[in-house]
């Protein structure tokens, strides 16, 4: 039945231009960050592992360590290009996949869910035009990414650069078409994104499991002996590494990507032509909660009785998600700690980087401290997102009716802020517990290290509150601040950034725990600063007009 007759695609051109116009900034950012990550890698690898001997040594170590193979994948050659492909390949693929699934869902299910698709579809727009435009938009984004990677890495060898560029873009397209299928199945865009991301997560886990189970022949002769486990071959991310950029490229692997993309696209097209606009093949909620005709149902009698309860109800899903994620990441990194200590112990430069991040102490403590610090940086993203829920509620007009009741602005904001600040304490505690479970020792010091991140997290949250209260239009800039802090903490030490730059981040002032000295001064000072920022923001909120 899936005849792709021309009328089905009428309007695709207009919709594609429209999609690119709407998303020009978002797509540019995704491509830019991804390309920057890939293109900066040869230099930083060169500074860490300058000679072929050092690199051979590194490869021997990472190849014999199952945890490392799981996290990053196998290495196939000692060239800087091959190391770059190893270090960033899977992650560039992940980023391309996330970008692609966001683009596709945004221009398909999101539009239907919001009701905008109804007006668009009443024009001369074919039944499959929106889906086609979304996939083409993802195609354009992935093509640009492939071009940037190919051109940018050409210095390390053009053929390998082309293979890596194509491979990364191909992972993107596999998940673009996967998202296209899922978008037909679910009624909510959020669920479509979540399910596709879950498939992506499963792809990562499959590849990780496959790679940790077999060394892929890398510890023997590079690029020749052995082969990946079946599990790795089940994952598109595993195909990317098996394309082997910079190590006797296996071009035929691209056929796997092409086949998967085409088959998935065909399935999505078939489904798209068979259903009503706005309808889905799967009910939104599990059967027990389903009402008549699959309409999602909630309780008939509501129990929410206060602004605080409403804030918790709106944010609890996110708190649960972050809690689980932080705990699991803690367990994984805790489990890696011993392996890293062995690995880094021999490399002078790498040890230096960890010690700049984690403090002048034993390498194990330095690693733990830098990883816990990393969790702190990510918790800053949580706190910003949570605080800015206030802004979202306000600009969407949902705050207005709440505030029209006998609810003061401070009480309304207080509910959300309690979730933001309390929630960040909860997730850091869980991350610490995760590390303790994974590492198995030093429970007290590790938990202390996790909690000592909080004043810095709160300063970022406080800044978000201040921006929201005083300059509501600029509130989203808090994301920029969190991003900058993340960048400073993440790559600053590796790039030998001067101390004055590292000091810009509140995290730079925290004591390096575990292993370092606890110093209460900066901790109290940062806490005080956070309180002051929150107070300033709330004072501003009380005084200003609500934006509608």
């Amino acid at each position: 039945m899936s005849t792709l007759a021309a009328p089905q695609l009428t309007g695709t051109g207009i919709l594609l231009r429209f999609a690119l116009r709407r998303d020009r900034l978002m797509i540019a950012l995704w491509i830019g960050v991804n390309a920057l990550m890939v293109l900066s890698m040869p230099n930083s690898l060169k500074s860490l592992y300058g000679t072929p001997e050092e690199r051979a040594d590194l490869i021997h170590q990472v190849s014999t360590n199952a945890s490392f193979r799981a996290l990053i994948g196998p290495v196939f050659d000692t060239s800087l290009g091959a190391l770059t492909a190893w270090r960033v390949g899977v992650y560039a693929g992940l980023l391309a996949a996330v970008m692609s699934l966001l683009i596709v869902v945004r221009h398909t299910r999101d539009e239907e869910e919001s009701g905008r698709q109804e007006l668009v579809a009443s024009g001369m727009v074919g039944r499959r035009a929106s889906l086609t435009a979304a996939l083409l938009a993802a195609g354009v984004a992935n093509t640009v990414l492939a071009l940037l990677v190919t051109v940018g890495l050409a210095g390390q060898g053009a053929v390998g650069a082309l293979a890596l560029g194509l491979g990364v873009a191909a992972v993107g397209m596999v998940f673009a078409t996967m998202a296209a299928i899922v978008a037909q199945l679910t009624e909510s865009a959020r669920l479509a994104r979540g399910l596709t991301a879950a498939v992506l997560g499963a792809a990562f886990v499959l590849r990780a499991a496959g790679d940790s189970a077999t060394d892929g022949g890398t510890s023997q002769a590079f690029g020749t002996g052995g082969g990946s486990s079946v599990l790795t071959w089940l994952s598109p991310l595993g195909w990317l590494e098996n394309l082997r950029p910079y190590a006797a490229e296996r071009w035929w692997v691209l056929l796997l990507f092409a086949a998967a993309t085409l088959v998935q696209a065909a399935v999505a097209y078939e489904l798209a032509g068979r259903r009503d606009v706005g309808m889905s093949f799967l009910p939104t909620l599990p059967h027990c909660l389903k009402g008549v005709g699959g309409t999602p149902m909630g309780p008939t009698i509501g129990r929410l009785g206060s602004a605080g309860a409403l804030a918790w109800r709106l944010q609890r899903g996110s708190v649960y998600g972050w809690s689980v994620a932080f705990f699991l990441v803690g367990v994984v990194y805790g489990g890696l700690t011993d392996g890293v200590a062995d690995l880094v112990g021999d490399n002078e430069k790498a040890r230096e980087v960890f010690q700049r991040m984690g403090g002048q102490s034993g390498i194990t403590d330095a690693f733990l401290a830098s990883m816990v610090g990393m969790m702190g940086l990510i918790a800053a993203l949580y706190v910003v997102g949570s605080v800015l829920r206030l802004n979202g509620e306000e600009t969407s007009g949902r705050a207005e009716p709440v505030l029209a009741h006998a609810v003061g602005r401070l009480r309304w904001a207080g509910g959300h802020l309690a979730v933001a600040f309390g929630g960040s304490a909860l997730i850091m505690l869980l991350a610490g517990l995760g590390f303790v479970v994974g590492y198995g020792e030093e429970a007290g010091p590790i938990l202390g290290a996790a909690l000592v991140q909080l004043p810095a997290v709160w300063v970022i949250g406080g800044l978000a509150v201040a921006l929201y209260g005083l300059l509501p239009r600029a509130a989203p800039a808090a994301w920029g601040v969190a991003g900058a802090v993340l960048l400073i903490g993440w790559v600053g030490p590796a790039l030998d950034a001067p101390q004055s730059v590292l000091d810009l981040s509140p995290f730079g002032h925290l004591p390096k725990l575990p292993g370092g000295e606890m110093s209460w001064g900066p901790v109290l000072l940062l806490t005080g600063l956070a309180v002051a920022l929150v107070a300033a923001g709330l004072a501003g909120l009380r005084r200003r007009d609500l934006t509608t």
Partner: protein
Amino acid sequence: MTKAITVSGLHKSFGKTHALDGLDLTVETGEVHGFLGPNGSGKSTTIRVLLGLLRADSGAAQVLGRDPWADAVEVHRRIAYVPGDVTLWRNLSGGEVIDLYGRLRGGLDAARRADLIDRFELDPAKKGRTYSKGNRQKVALVAAFASDVDLLILDEPTSGLDPLMEEVFQRCVEEERDRGRTILLSSHILSEVEELCDRVSIIRRGRTVESGSLADLRHLTRTSVTAELAGTPNGLAHLPGVHDLDVQGHRVKLQVDTDKLDAVLRQLSESGVRSLTSTPPTLEELFLRHYQEEAAAR
């Protein structure tokens, strides 16, 4: 006259809910057709089927002589649609959206676009997030009226418009009709329907319960009569079709089925009529009657 829309025996279910249960609808070319019914009676579902957004489970639907599902694009070339709840993209201006919708229908009349923006007092440079409900509605209305189409499908298009803009809307609809365009107007604003529509269809629970010109429909309902008589009225209570009779001395108030009006007037004149007012049923009364039946049927 040819038919712009013909629908017969349309069924559409969502799970166990029968949204449409054998709906019939005929809209003649060149008429303004009112489409009425209580909330949840299936108006929007019908419109979505007419737009090819939903596929009917059974029954036949033709829009401008074509199948709205199979020939959606061809049908849409000649249709403009305005939903009751317009959602815009937060960061796109109203003007951008008008032009997008126009291009998706194969082009806008630029002069008419400018004229309509002027008449609706819309600022097309503002971003979507800054528009009020009424202004979002105007964006969709301007895009629809500026398109060169044969059929306009308007689903509660004036919810959110102020009375002045409501007036502008009514003029626009009249202009469209004068150009020979067909309009299907779903609305709860009965004065608007009464003012604009040549014929109306009333649906209830996914089925058409009345269809015809307003005069036809009025004929099916009751006229209220108030009379001041010279003598004492008698015999009225026994006449067929008389309801709610209220006699106070020489004053008589009653309701009568419109096709029985004749007999009542004859009876009244026997007692000598000093003054007489007779009010035809308003659409409101007509409508309420159907709505109340709906409530009673529940």
